């Protein structure tokens, strides 16, 4: 083998090794379940002490949203099925905040076990369909959004 060829071979092997190792690390890192938030169930299993900041994620329980008169304080329940947590938030909720939709709240538990949020983020759903299909889905209980028309 000429020195140039040999050098090239070494370079290719190094690249393959590097990319291989990197992909393995990336793969295992992604396996670790990139945790953006604690779900109510996780919270029930591993309680976080009051006052410690974390992110709470789940769905807004339908029918749980209460606005307190004129003030900007809102109470709602975040659920993931088995467990739920009551959230208190002072401020304007995002436009996409709807019952039955996903939210992530940032804040800490207070002493009464209620979650005091400093920030609430929401997400719209990504489905496009004609009204009649939506109606059909709603009838069968698959669609839990309120009303129709642009959000």
């Amino acid at each position: 083998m000429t020195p140039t060829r040999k050098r090239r071979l070494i370079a290719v092997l190094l690249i393959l090794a590097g990319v291989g190792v990197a992909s393995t690390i990336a793969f295992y890192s992604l396996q670790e379940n990139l945790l953006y938030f604690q779900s109510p169930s996780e919270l029930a299993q591993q309680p976080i002490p009051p006052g410690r900041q974390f992110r709470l994620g789940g769905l807004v329980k339908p029918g749980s949203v209460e606005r307190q008169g004129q003030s900007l304080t809102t109470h709602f329940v975040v659920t993931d099925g088995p467990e739920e947590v009551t959230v208190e938030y002072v401020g304007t909720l995002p436009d996409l905040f709807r019952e039955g939709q996903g939210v992530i709240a940032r804040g800490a538990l207070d002493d009464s076990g209620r979650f005091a949020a400093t920030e609430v983020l929401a997400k719209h759903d990504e489905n496009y369909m004609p009204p009649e299909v939506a109606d059909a889905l709603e009838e069968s209980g698959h669609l839990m959004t309120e009303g129709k028309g642009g959000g």
Partner: protein
Amino acid sequence: MSGQAVNASLSRAFFALVRRDILLAFRRRTELLFPVIFLMVVVSLFPLGIGPGPQLLARIAPGVIWIAALLATVISLDALFRSDFEDGTLEQFVISGHPLTLIALAKILSHWLVAGLPIVLLSPLLALWMNLPGESLGVMILTLAIGTPILSLIGSIGVGLTISLKRGGQLLSLLVFPLYVPILIIATAAVMAASDSLPYTQFLGLLTAGLITSVTLAPFAAAAALKISLS
């Protein structure tokens, strides 16, 4: 020459180059300090611009420090190859027969030692200014330690491409900032997860994967870019 002799001469060339670049950097101390001072000034502008509320500052601290680090790195990048390009040293490197990839890697390493490492060392002070919670400080330093070499590595490709242009610096920022997006996202996510008491090791893992990938690929691209710029 036998294989071992070639390897020995290559590693000697590599370290000779690193040593020379660090010596040159210390001969021009003001240029050495400039990115660091720039970094401090940029970070200090944020409390002045958006108010000194400790909560807000703590919230934006990871982003601010990381963006300032990106800016400081880009400012220092031009020094990576420019003087060697302009005084003809780069031509001498090409003709030496040593692989240009290795030369690029040596220059990137010395660039990080001179421009990236000071950012890592300075970060505790910046974190203090930005009221970053103590528990996430360690993660902040770690992300900078793993992330700033990636900035030098990716940046070297951009410098290699723009080096033959008189006003290459302006174009350089357009070329490299989009490529820096993933590092910014992952690094700040790690720090924010740490301050929200969430696990963050997976983010550090991703950053490490990024570092390994860029160490293996970027020097080749930088060498190819330099060859094009020399033509």
